């Protein structure tokens, strides 16, 4: 009787998750949505703590300790992180969720009676959950490392496809062997654990840093899947539904992002951005024109319409506030300033939107790819700030280019294009950009922040 009542309380938590997610997907209700989902989680935790159980130690002190410690670490990390490092943070949090799934499944194996066959649905699910948890754990850590920049794309294992295939076959083979043993041998579980952890590393390592948004989203759906599998193990509906909701949302986001890059998920996963030296057009004698700050400042002031194309460079340099400052100065002079947002600009879907929102840029000024492209021919100046691949015409013109087919912002249609860039180094995809050599293109070299600061000063004085 009591159990039925408690189980129906779980239903409330599930409804809160669903309503929360639904509200998160619309700008006006997103804040409530997040709070509702958070409340649902708190409610589910309380219900679980009070759930009637028999023959157990309860261990409330240990549980309280874990809950408290996790909450503190999570809160501090979330408070401290700078807005530009959000993708890394989400990736790291995601990895922790995966690690938790992994630990639970290890304990489930550890607790399994010695003298029983493992060939049952429960253990098959546990085995699979262990694998999924491990991938999302080490995979997320690698994604974190790549976004932080201490893991380089050039550090790739030899023959990644071959290694991954062999590992995967080994993991499947070992799982089948393990489950068919007459009784559990924990050493094989440890072997499975190690292989799965390694697979998470080798799975993400060959994927270029530029594709990390897709990967994080995919790993997020893995963590959800892991939680759902754990829900099956415990016949717990909250875990099952919560996990599946995340799995579904992660999958949809992954697909949306792949579509934005006009690449298949498969293409992303096998590491499509292996930079070929062929695509680098550096051998030809081409000269770029450098922009002078004073000229640019005056040109901007007398423009009618200016577009800013932000990219990851803007995030790295933390220059979003200066961007908005320049915007305000120019608006005061009667210039229309808008921002063209490429769907995969930055390292996370909607990364640029979040950054610019932090700098108080009003939402209606952010223009998406299609509308911006219609607007470029009537634009006086386009400022490309720390973006590269998303404005590379090779995506349209050069079938041999790794980014061929990706929709780009057609900034070359504007009357004048100024590219703020640290150096002539190619972007994340490692390919040269013909835009820089265009007739109406000029370069402003330097860190985005210092260049923008100088430009703001110059516009203010001019």
């Amino acid at each position, binding site marked *: 009787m009591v159990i039925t009542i408690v189980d129906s309380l779980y239903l409330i938590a599930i409804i809160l998750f669903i309503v929360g997610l639904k509200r998160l997907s619309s700008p006006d209700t997103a804040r409530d949505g997040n709070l509702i989902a958070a409340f649902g989680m708190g409610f589910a935790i309380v219900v679980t703590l009070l759930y009637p159980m028999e023959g157990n130690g309860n261990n409330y002190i240990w549980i309280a300790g874990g809950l408290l410690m996790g909450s503190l670490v999570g809160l501090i990390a979330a408070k401290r992180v700078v807005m530009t490092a959000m993708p890394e943070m989400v990736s790291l949090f995601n990895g922790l969720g995966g690690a938790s799934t992994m630990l639970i499944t290890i304990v489930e194996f550890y607790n399994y009676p010695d003298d029983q066959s493992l060939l049952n649905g429960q253990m098959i699910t546990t085995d699979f959950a262990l694998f999924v948890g491990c991938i999302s754990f080490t995979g997320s850590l690698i994604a974190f490392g790549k976004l932080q920049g201490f893991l380089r794309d050039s550090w790739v294992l030899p023959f990644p496809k071959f290694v991954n295939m062999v590992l995967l076959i080994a993991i499947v083979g070992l799982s089948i062997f393990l489950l068919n043993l007459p009784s559990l041998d924990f050493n094989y579980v440890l072997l499975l654990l190690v292989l799965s952890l390694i697979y998470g590393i080798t799975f993400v390592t060959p994927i270029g840093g530029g594709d990390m948004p897709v990967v994080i989203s995919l790993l*997020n759906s893995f963590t959800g899947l892991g939680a759902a599998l754990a829900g099956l193990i415990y016949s717990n509906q909250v875990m099952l539904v919560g996990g599946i909701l995340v799995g579904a949302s992660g999958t949809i986001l992954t697909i949306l992002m792949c579509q934005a890059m006009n690449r298949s998920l498969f293409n992303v996963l096998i590491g499509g951005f292996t930079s070929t030296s062929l695509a680098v057009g550096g051998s030809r004698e081409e000269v770029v024109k450098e922009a002078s700050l004073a000229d640019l400042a005056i040109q901007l002031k007398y423009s009618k319409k200016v577009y800013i194309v932000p990219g990851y460079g803007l995030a790295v340099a933390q220059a979003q506030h200066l961007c908005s400052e320049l915007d305000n100065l120019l608006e005061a002079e009667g210039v229309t300033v808008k921002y063209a947002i490429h769907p995969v600009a930055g390292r996370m879907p909607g990364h640029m939107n979040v950054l610019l929102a932090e700098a108080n840029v009003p939402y209606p000024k952010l223009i998406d790819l299609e509308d911006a492209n219609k607007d470029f021919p009537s634009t006086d100046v386009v400022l490309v700030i720390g973006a590269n691949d998303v404005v590379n015409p090779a995506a349209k013109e050069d079938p041999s280019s790794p980014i061929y087919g990706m929709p780009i912002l057609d900034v070359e249609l504007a009357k004048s294009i100024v590219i703020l860039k640290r150096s002539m180094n190619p972007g994340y995809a490692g390919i040269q950009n013909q835009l820089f050599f265009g007739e109406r293109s000029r370069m402003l070299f330097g860190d985005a922040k210092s260049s923008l600061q100088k430009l703001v000063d110059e516009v203010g004085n001019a």
Partner: protein
Amino acid sequence: MEALIQFLGENLQMIYVLVLAILLGTEVISKVPTVLHTPLMSGANAISGVVVIGAIILMRQADSGNYPVLILGFCGIALAMTNVVGGYAVTHRMLDMFKRKKKD
């Protein structure tokens, strides 16, 4: 095979829930504007910490003297809880910026 069918039979209700949750999840989340991709991903990420429930159940069922399980379970709870609290807090911070802007 037999074991699998038996498992399906015993858990048919859970499998119903699973399939319906997949459909519901895709339906709820499709058609999201790009601006909200990051907060949505981060919010969903927080929900994936729901595995903390499993860790709590596991701890409550463990013997009080079984230290390997207690330690692993403790870590499981702490890690998942970091994911939950950190995830919601980060999402809240991101969404806060949207709010502030709207008032201006």
